[in-house]
């Protein structure tokens, strides 16, 4: 069983983003998805601080302090890209105009609840940003995270124990071990990495998957084998 690294996870997500999609990539790991978008697709990236048509980082020395992404990193604007103020930007998110957002998470519940903004630790300084707006507003919410914590506990859980970001909002979870859909019928395994059976996935997560994967198929790029479609 070979876990996907972050770039491989990003590449796997990028495969599912269709031509013409308006997409918001959350701060941190999800920003890697931009590096893997297929060149033959036109995907428009939204950044909540006020950009549509965001381009890659500028070459060193050409950074513009007035052209940042939501992570406050310097970016560029593609031809056709536009700027707008914060209320318009969040209207795009809350009004259901953004097709896909990709966010990290502490936990996702079996019914699609998302917990990704607050560790819940009493001494933590809370910060929420646009996470709650994206969670309830994007047409599809993709989560990108490692399946297990450092202690080996599943981050897909029956019920979230971390403070919630949104209720029943996650569509699909991309992890280093499997891709899992949240459906009205429950969790559905879309793919597992080569060498990981559905039985093992149920064992390590402690969850049951009504729509079970059966066999892993080797050789499908990039290291994830489609099954149980």
């Amino acid at each position: 069983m070979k876990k996907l690294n972050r770039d491989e996870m990003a590449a796997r997500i990028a495969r599912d983003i269709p031509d013409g999609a308006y997409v918001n990539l959350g701060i941190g790991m999800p920003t890697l998805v931009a590096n893997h978008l297929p060149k033959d697709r036109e995907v428009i990236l939204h950044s909540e601080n006020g950009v549509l048509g965001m381009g890659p980082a500028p070459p060193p020395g050409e950074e513009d302090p007035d052209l940042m992404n939501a992570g406050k990193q310097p970016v560029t604007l593609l031809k056709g890209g536009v700027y707008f103020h914060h209320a318009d930007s969040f209207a795009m998110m809350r009004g259901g105009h953004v097709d896909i957002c990709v966010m990290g998470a502490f936990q996702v519940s079996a019914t699609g609840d998302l917990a990704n903004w607050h560790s819940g630790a009493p001494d933590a300084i809370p910060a929420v940003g646009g996470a709650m707006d994206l969670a309830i507003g994007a047409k599809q919410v993709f989560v990108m995270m490692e399946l297990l914590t450092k202690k080996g506990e599943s981050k897909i859980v029956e019920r979230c124990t971390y403070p919630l970001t949104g209720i029943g909002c996650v569509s699909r979870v991309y992890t280093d071990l499997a891709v899992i859909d949240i459906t009205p019928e429950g969790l559905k395994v879309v793919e597992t990495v080569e060498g990981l059976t559905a039985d093992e996935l149920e064992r390590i997560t402690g969850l049951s998957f009504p729509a079970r994967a059966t066999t892993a198929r080797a050789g499908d790029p990039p290291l994830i084998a489609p099954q149980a479609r």
Partner: protein
Amino acid sequence: MIDKRVATVEAAVADVRDGSTVMIGGFGLAGMPSELIDALIARGARDLTVVNNNAGNGFTGLAALLQAGLVRKIICSFPRQVDSDVFDGLYRAGRIELELVPQGNLAERIRAAGAGIGAFFTPTGYGTILAEGKETRKISGRDYVLEYPIHADVALIKARAADRWGNLVYNKTARNFGPIMATAARCTIAQVDEIVELGELDPESVVTPGIFVQRVVAVKSKVGAGARGKEVR
């Protein structure tokens, strides 16, 4: 004759009083009106409530205002950052009150204030600890939380250019909260890289109509576009 030009940042903030609610534009450093903030620190009005997306970066601008001990409460969405040391210290010491608001609710509460809306139902935050104690309603099968507008006494914002009527155009993502904060304050003060003659700003491109702006002041800014040696009138 309408002339909203003010000669200096000090004169622009000279009447900000203790206990005021002050909106400050900017997302991180992009669009932060640093020189107006410096003037506000020098003015020394205390017990302020500040509205900003963040809670200061490093030790300049908003962070310096907090460090000066002039802020009683901050309303923001994302205080904790790698360089939010000043806020972190004040918060842990119990010396500043934090009202944490989801970013879209923050933007909409500001917009609502500017548009005369009494309150609004938003789906953002429903079922989370940030909606605890708030009125909720199910509308067409979806759950919403009632949120109230945020009005301000003063808004300090940054734009690229203004004319003497207070019309504003912005620069790239430095626009962020400027246009909505301008609508939500009784006195909006814009620092700009340049003040141009009436008619020079393309009326199709003006982002903030001058009705929302009370004072404009030209500043050769240390941060942002004006900092890169662009000629400023």
